[in-house]
């Protein structure tokens, strides 16, 4: 432990990491300005959701990684856990940035969920009409309902070719109103944010206290609560994915949807942990506490979760493709036509094939510059993945400045906080009873 005596595992008062929070903050301000100045109101809703959800997946992946390490009482990741915890501790920032979004949707200022919101608000029409006749009159009836229903009518026509189909579409939506209504949606959204903040702040807080008092009882408590925490986490993440992403295509449903989002989040946080860890390692801030053995482990998990992402994504797609039911196929139809086909192929090759081949062997995972490039690439692909989930709902493939601006605004604010936090805390959990064992991690293969 001579290394530890020399090294207090802190960022210190000067150097790159003591000022690293400035860059994302500047990007956030610039991105926010660009987004507000260039976007129309409709696009801004989608763009903000894109930025918000992409950012949230890093935090959610962090919660998962911390909880699962305590659940399994593992020691391999102890020395790199603090980086994950710090990313996770940005949960309140995500919550703060999500509140305007939830409020905007609830108050009707953000119109991206109009499809189910209007049905939920005017659900009585369904029972008043016969189901088959209704199709022709849905667009008409909604045309009188509010400001945005002109678009709604066009949208309805585009995807419902016959009155029967339109009626079916509307019937599905009206049956969903018990779940998909504005008040329930907003209340649930706030509930998810509270759960995430509670888990993140509790675990970060206990781990920080352990830095000072070195009390193993913190570890015991965190292990005990890890299982219920993971159940809560799994439910909130799944339903957040349903509420915020899946309901963009209101009639569509897929039970594996949340798992796909979860798999992407896990890949994202592992890539991010490796990147931050590599940067700290190269600057000598963590000494030898995080070394090639730990990066090897993290990259193995990242490789595994990239394959898992492919597995669940493909499962969803193949079942829908095989059944070929229009109600289910619409979601993929939108994500295939209008230039999105290229993005879908990019995800297949960029999110799966490239990491699969380029990170498969031990040599590739242990070549740190190579690993760094791959992590940047994987994070980029994760962002594209979320983009592909959201933006086809706004139309054909056309990247707008507002999309990038919104991502920079939310992500920049989040990472400004995370990097600032990183400068305030020890970079490894110095009080963890398993740290000593983690320091001597050794990959036999």
């Amino acid at each position, binding site marked *: 432990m001579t290394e530890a005596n020399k090294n207090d595992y802190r960022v210190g008062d000067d150097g790159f990491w003591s000022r690293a929070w400035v860059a994302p903050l500047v990007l956030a301000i610039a991105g926010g300005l660009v987004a507000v100045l260039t976007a129309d109101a409709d696009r801004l809703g989608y763009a903000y959701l894109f930025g918000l959800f992409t950012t949230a997946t890093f935090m959610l992946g962090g919660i998962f990684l911390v909880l699962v390490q305590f659940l399994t009482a593992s020691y391999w990741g102890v020395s790199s856990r603090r980086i994950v915890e710090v990313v996770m501790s940005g949960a309140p920032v995500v919550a703060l940035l999500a509140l305007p979004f939830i409020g905007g949707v609830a108050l009707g200022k953000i119109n991206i969920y109009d499809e189910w919101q209007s049905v939920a608000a005017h659900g009585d029409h369904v029972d008043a009409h016969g189901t088959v006749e209704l199709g022709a009159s849905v667009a008409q009836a909604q045309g009188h309902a509010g400001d945005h229903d002109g678009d709604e009518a066009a949208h309805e026509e585009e995807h419902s070719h016959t009155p029967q189909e339109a009626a079916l579409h509307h019937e599905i939506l009206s049956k969903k109103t018990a779940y998909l209504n504005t008040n329930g949606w907003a209340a649930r959204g706030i509930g998810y944010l509270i759960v995430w903040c509670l888990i993140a702040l509790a675990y970060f807080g206990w781990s920080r206290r352990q830095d000072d008092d070195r009390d193993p009882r913190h570890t015991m408590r965190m292990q005990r609560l890890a299982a219920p925490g993971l159940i809560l986490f799994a439910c909130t993440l799944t339903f957040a994915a349903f509420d915020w992403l899946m309901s963009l295509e209101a009639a569509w449903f897929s039970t594996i949807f949340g798992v796909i989002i979860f798999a992407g989040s896990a890949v994202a946080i592992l890539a991010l942990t490796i990147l931050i860890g590599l940067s700290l390692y190269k600057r000598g801030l963590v000494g030898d506490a995080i070394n090639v053995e730990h990066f090897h482990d993290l990259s193995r998990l990242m490789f595994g979760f990239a394959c898992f992402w492919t597995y669940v994504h*493909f499962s969803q*797609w193949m079942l829908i493709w*095989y059944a*070929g039911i229009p109600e289910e196929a619409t979601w993929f139809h939108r994500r295939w036509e209008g230039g999105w086909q290229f993005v879908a192929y990019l995800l297949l090759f960029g999110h799966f094939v490239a990491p699969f081949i380029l990170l*498969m*062997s031990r040599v590739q995972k242990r070549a740190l510059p190579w690993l760094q490039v791959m992590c940047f690439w994987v994070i980029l692909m994760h962002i594209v993945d979320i983009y592909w989930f959201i933006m086809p709902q706004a139309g054909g493939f056309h990247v707008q400045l507002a999309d990038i601006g919104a991502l920079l605004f939310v992500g920049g604010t989040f990472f400004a906080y995370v990097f600032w936090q990183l400068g305030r805390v020890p970079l490894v959990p110095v009080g963890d009873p398993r740290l000593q064992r983690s320091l001597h991690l050794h990959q036999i*293969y």
Partner: protein
Amino acid sequence: MANQTKQPALYLAEYGTPNTIAKAAMKVRDAGYQKWDCHTPYAMHGMDEAMGLKPTRIGVISFIFGMLGLATAVFMMQYTNAFSFNLLNIGAGYPLVVGGKPPGAFPPMVPIIFELGILLCGLATLFGLLYIIKLPMHNHPIFESERFEAASDDRFFISIEAGDQKFDLERTKALLEATDPISLELIEEEVQ
């Protein structure tokens, strides 16, 4: 058998602590021996470096057979389901329309491609591993030693086999004696 003779099989050196065997292993490694091994009651970190072990080749075997399984599945299904060409005069393919999908449709083949890839990869890993670690092996002269039973208890052993090119009754013995073993014995096996 009437004319059984004995010939040297291996040297077995016994050590009392992990430190002494690690130091001894480094000496044997530096002396350039190939057919030798360390026997410890538990897995010791750092022994592969001390012994100069090369990374295993099992990954290469797994990869090759995984790809082979993948290619077999693609070819098998594309040939039997999709094409009506007559390959090598061994009979025509059999294009099938199932569920209204085109005969050559790739998506339903993916699970089978995946499964066959995994199957061949897994089997190749198992049997490749058995081949590399030379199993099954019914007996080994090292079990002639009574002392060797302590290898599963509290003692550490280095064995250098007579099949090694550098093996020499005198010089190998000198090398091992220089590493301060608790005991050193030459084990012989019977040959017909």
